């Protein structure tokens, strides 16, 4: 058993290294110099000497292999460097932004999972009926909608037209708030992006839950329970749902990996100051250290989530313990 874990572990390290290398190479392959965003049009007026000094200060003149080695060493030490563009430590940047991403994706996950569980159970229970069809169709329709389009419709209707919710940012800027007022402000700003995210993510969970419930409901022990006269409600909640939650847990755990990367498009549409938006801006600005750091965080979290799933699965589902393929 533990030979399996070592082999798996080794593979993960390999993947991590490969993605770290890819993360390093990708920004370097992009044409265009970060000098533009550091110095603007004025850079054209610098003479060669001063320009070289700028390049030296940014560390861009060292040979490629040397930059690569330093990158790996820094990564291992957890040192993420300083943003070219903003002149601030990236760790700070990530820390500021990640809390908003976690808030958005965290509540989104919970909401989507809850909606999916409820919906999936209901649909499975009313299998074949109009409710089931309606829910399935709605789920498929939502999955087919571009998330940014949905977000913009919500902005147009609820933000611009009805003025029920604010349309940008995570908080009303510049106004110091405490306690409940702060909570209300954050909640109001979170509402539209959250709803968009839930509408887009819930269908996936819904389908998995529905499948799982159907499978469980088809099991012999359910028939036995019914035959014994156990109420339908009880069958549903005490017996079926508990067992169907297993794959939902898997989905939940796997989603965790993506929490850190943020829903870039949704954050862009709503100007929500999260990590996804940071990555997009950094790529457009060729802010190499930020891109590398953000990529690495995403890769790490995805690998970690996978590793967690791999470890926990045999514990949760005994069927998988044997027959590894």
């Amino acid at each position: 058993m533990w030979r399996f874990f070592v082999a798996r572990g080794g593979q993960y390290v390999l993947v991590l290294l490969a993605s770290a290398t890819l993360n390093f190479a990708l920004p370097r392959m992009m044409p265009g110099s970060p000098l533009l965003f550091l110095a603007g049009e004025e850079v054209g007026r610098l003479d060669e000497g001063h320009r070289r000094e700028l390049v030296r200060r940014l560390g861009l003149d060292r040979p490629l292999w040397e930059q690569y080695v330093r990158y790996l060493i820094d990564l291992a030490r957890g040192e993420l460097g300083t943003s070219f563009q903003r002149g601030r430590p990236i760790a700070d940047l990530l820390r500021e932004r990640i809390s908003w991403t976690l808030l958005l994706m965290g509540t989104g996950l919970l909401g989507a999972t809850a909606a999916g569980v409820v919906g999936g159970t209901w649909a499975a229970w009313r299998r074949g009926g109009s409710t089931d069809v309606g829910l399935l169709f709605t789920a498929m329709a939502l999955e087919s909608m571009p998330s940014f389009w949905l977000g913009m419709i919500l902005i147009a209707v609820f933000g611009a037209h009805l003025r029920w919710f604010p349309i940008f940012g995570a908080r009303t800027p510049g106004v110091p708030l405490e306690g409940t007022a702060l909570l209300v402000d954050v909640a109001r700003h979170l509402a539209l992006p959250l709803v968009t995210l839930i509408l887009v993510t819930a269908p996936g969970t819904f389908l998995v839950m529905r499948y799982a419930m159907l499978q469980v409901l088809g099991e012999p022990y359910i028939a036995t329970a019914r035959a014994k006269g156990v109420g339908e409600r009880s069958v549903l909640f005490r017996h079926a749902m508990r067992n169907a939650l297993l794959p939902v847990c898997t989905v939940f755990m796997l989603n965790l990996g993506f929490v850190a990367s943020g829903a870039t498009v949704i954050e862009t549409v709503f100007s929500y100051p999260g990590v996804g938006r940071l990555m997009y801006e950094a790529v457009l600005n060729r802010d190499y250290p930020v891109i590398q750091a953000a990529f690495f965080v995403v890769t790490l979290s995805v690998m970690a989530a996978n590793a967690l799933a791999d470890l926990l699965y045999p514990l949760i589902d005994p069927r998988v313990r044997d027959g590894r393929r």
Partner: protein
Amino acid sequence: MAVAELRLPRPFLRLPVRPAGIAGAGVLAALACVAIAAPWISPYDPASVVAPPFEPPSPAHPLGTNDIGQDILSELIYGSRISLTIGFLAAATAVSLGTLVGVVAGYYGGAVDALLMRLVDLILVIPFLPLMIVLAAYLGPRFWNTILVIAALTWARPARVIRAQVLSLGTLDYVDAARALGASTPRILTRHILPGVLPLSLAQFITAASHAILVEASLSFLGLGDPTAKSWGSILYYAQARSAFLSGAWPWWVLPPGLLVTVTALSFALVGLALEERLNPRLRYRHSGAALQTELIRN
């Protein structure tokens, strides 16, 4: 990767899957007709400036005009060509590649399998946005490059699914028998494995097409697609950039293109569903962790 086996007892039993699939196919056929017949049914040439910009709907322009005075309805009609072609080609490329990889990995197993699946994991982890920017910068954000990039990132999931299928087929007795009788590998692959895999590939293609259409819309919207190729996504790009949401123009400028994208993606999904249901109702879905991940990458 963690593998959870869900044996699915006909989850779509008693549901109008076939009618839905037929409806979906019907819509797609209609869209294809519109795309082909565009030059005849489109009221104007979408590239010509035909009226003042930002006009609301009128009898001459049922969906009004865009920011430089081009007819939006004509843009939508011609846009079907671009969006459908990109979706189709990207999905075809992705699934062909994915089937190839899946078959090779599943059949040969061992180091080849491990290597290929690690590659699949890597693909699933690559941040999608910057890769598109790299390619767009080198190759130019053009039509073919959009297809290439979408395909380059969406072949991974079909590869996994096909591999799972090959694994289950590979253990079947008659394959062992064929091998024992000394049949050559290509023969086994083409005569025995491939036919078992093709229907699944087809289903995967339909699903991939659905995703490809959505991805193309997102890319164009972010300004990473080719803005001079008038796809539905690029219409949304200009609508957003020229404040359609503020100026009240969104009902006719934003709703229709998004709706068309949704309807197309949905139709593909319904057809895919009907196909999967019909091909093999007792199909064992091996939901590996990575496969589920790809669902989420879209966001």
